């Protein structure tokens, strides 16, 4: 049986000996430098002067003053978000303009933020028994994780790239079925190569 060195359990040459166990072959001190570098070594004289270090730190902040700025000056500048950005939800429509959702509640079940609320009822169309009578997403609770999209068996719910999401009251941010279907109309022609 071969022994593999176990640095976690046996510090070279010490731990096993302390426990009165025979020293395994691999535990014999190896030739060469054994001294470890320690992070908490005594500071050198130069380090103990502090002031040069302080100046260096100060300068590292100050030189940023004339470096390139990352801020996007919204709304004059509009940020180009990545293709798989996850923004406001939309409820997709089929080619006949009907909501695709069949009210299976899988998005509601998958949602980690509990922001989706569906009320199901008998569908007015013959090709499905059930559809969502009400479909509400609390955009304030949503964490935009995309799990609803992932869970949907009908590709009926998707996240768009729309990120400018503002309201002046909380109830404005409860997006109902009509609003979510409108989001589809707004983003119908957008293509999301990574997810759609």
């Amino acid at each position, binding site marked *: 049986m071969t022994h593999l060195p176990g640095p976690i359990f046996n510090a070279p040459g010490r731990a096993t000996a302390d426990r009165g166990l025979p020293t395994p072959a691999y535990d014999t001190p190896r030739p060469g430098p054994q001294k470890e570098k320690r992070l908490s070594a005594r500071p050198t004289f130069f380090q103990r002067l502090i002031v040069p270090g302080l100046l260096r730190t100060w300068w590292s902040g100050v030189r940023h003053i004339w470096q390139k700025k990352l801020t996007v000056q919204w709304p004059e500048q509009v940020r180009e978000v990545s293709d798989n950005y996850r923004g406001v939800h939309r409820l997709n429509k089929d080619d006949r303009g009907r909501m695709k959702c069949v*009210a*299976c509640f899988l998005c509601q079940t998958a949602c980690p933020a509990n922001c989706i609320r569906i009320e199901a009822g008998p569908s007015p169309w013959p090709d499905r028994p059930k559809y969502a009578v009400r479909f509400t997403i609390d955009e304030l609770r949503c964490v935009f994780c995309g799990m609803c999209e992932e869970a949907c068996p*009908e590709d009926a719910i998707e996240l768009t790239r729309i990120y400018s999401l503002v309201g002046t009251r909380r109830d404005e941010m409860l997006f109902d079925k009509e609003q979510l279907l409108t989001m589809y109309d707004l983003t119908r022609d957008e293509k999301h190569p990574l997810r759609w």
Partner: protein
Amino acid sequence: MSDVRLTIDDREVVVPEGTTILEAARSVGIEIPHFCYHPGLSAPSNCRMCLVEVQGQDKLVPSCATAVADGMVVRTGTPRVHESHRSVMEFYLSNHPLDCPVCDQAGECVLQDYSYGWGSATSRFEETKVTQPVKDVGPDIVLYADRCIMCTRCVRFLREVSGTGELSVIHRGVRSEIHVAGDRPVTNPLAGNIVDICPVGALCSKDFLFKCRVWWLTSTASACPRCARACSIRVDSSEGRILRIKPRENAAVNGMWICDEGRFAFRQWHGAGRLDVPLVNGDRGFTHCDWDEAIALAARSLRQVAMRYGGESVAFIGSPWATIEENMLLARLFVSLGATMGSLWPAPAESPQRFPGFEISGEKAWNVAGARRTLMDVAGQLLTLDRLADEIERGRVRAVYALGGAYRGALVPCDDLGLELLEFFAIQTCFVTDKGLKANLILPGASPYEKVGTVRNERGVLQEVNAVMSPPGQARRDWDILMALAKALAATVDDDLTRAVLDRPAAQWNYTRSASGNE
């Protein structure tokens, strides 16, 4: 009947002669997959899911219809058995619409569960699936014939348990379907059970349809308040609303079934019209008041009557809709005031309904037996309502305090009690009935689904009752109202009282909690 010793999956099993392999396996916790077998019905062994390997037999045998034999060696998990399961599942799934996302059964569907074990992720089936219509089976039941796997549990239930036989299987092979004879839709009082026993989402309750996905239901074990049989039930609720009620298996009470009256009994307390504030009858008719006022008024009035005419002029009326504890607290409280006369609201009586495999009691309240016995135990005697009416007329009873808790209209037969002759009448109830309108004080109590306690059914079985939700608005559990009244009447009484009440059934009635039972 002698015992048979056999081996199932290397485990010694001893069961009575005549037991089937499936049941024997079940008794030691080995679950053999099955569709058509149901413990409450005959076993036609037509689903072929429960095939197992028996040593010495070439072919696999249907475990639900094969009786055990001495020395039998059964294996339920061999590759051959699993291959059989896979074949059967492929067969079922080839013509199943696989519409789990919109199917109400999803989450509690046997076919779905077995698919995880033995279903194939891909299908070899290229042909068009046979589609069948959605059929209206009865006023409460709809059949999604597409999803049906022809286990015939519903057909057998209607033949064997309800004895009505409205459903049958017509045609054969892939075209077979569940058929409702045109003139006889499924309207029998036990019809709801076929929805429960349907292993897939073919039979759905119209009442529950699309209401909620089952994984969001909270299940509470309780007893059915609808009749004196007090069937063991499971109340499924979501967000504080009862959405459906299903039977719990309890051999001592209801076996495996409940009747539709009990299934939908929650509607009688649910919904609009529930009393949710205390009402006091003053100069301007009934007005709302707060609880402190109401309890103070009750205590003051009862004490006044007791002082002026003696304690025995105060009477109480228990309720068969209240738990044993509530009735006992009521009786002890009033006996401690000096009351000697107590009565019990009669439960509405109908003729009992008997079916080949089930019986519905004619007394329409769950705790008739428990309430009567409790009140008798504490008060020593129990007057009929007629006797109480006499006593009121003769002026020997001047104040009455009653538990109600009944559904709307259930207390109507007690209209001629002569309440107008009383100086004080208070009732804890759920609805403002005609009766209530003659009261001085109406206190909003709890429905049977909002209580915690014990009930005793007509066969003497005690069952735990658990609260599914809180009473609406300001309404309170009747126990809490009585405790508040007890406190207002005599501050020292309550600790002793509680202990006495809570210990009593256990000590006296060889109290065995029988609320367990299997799902």
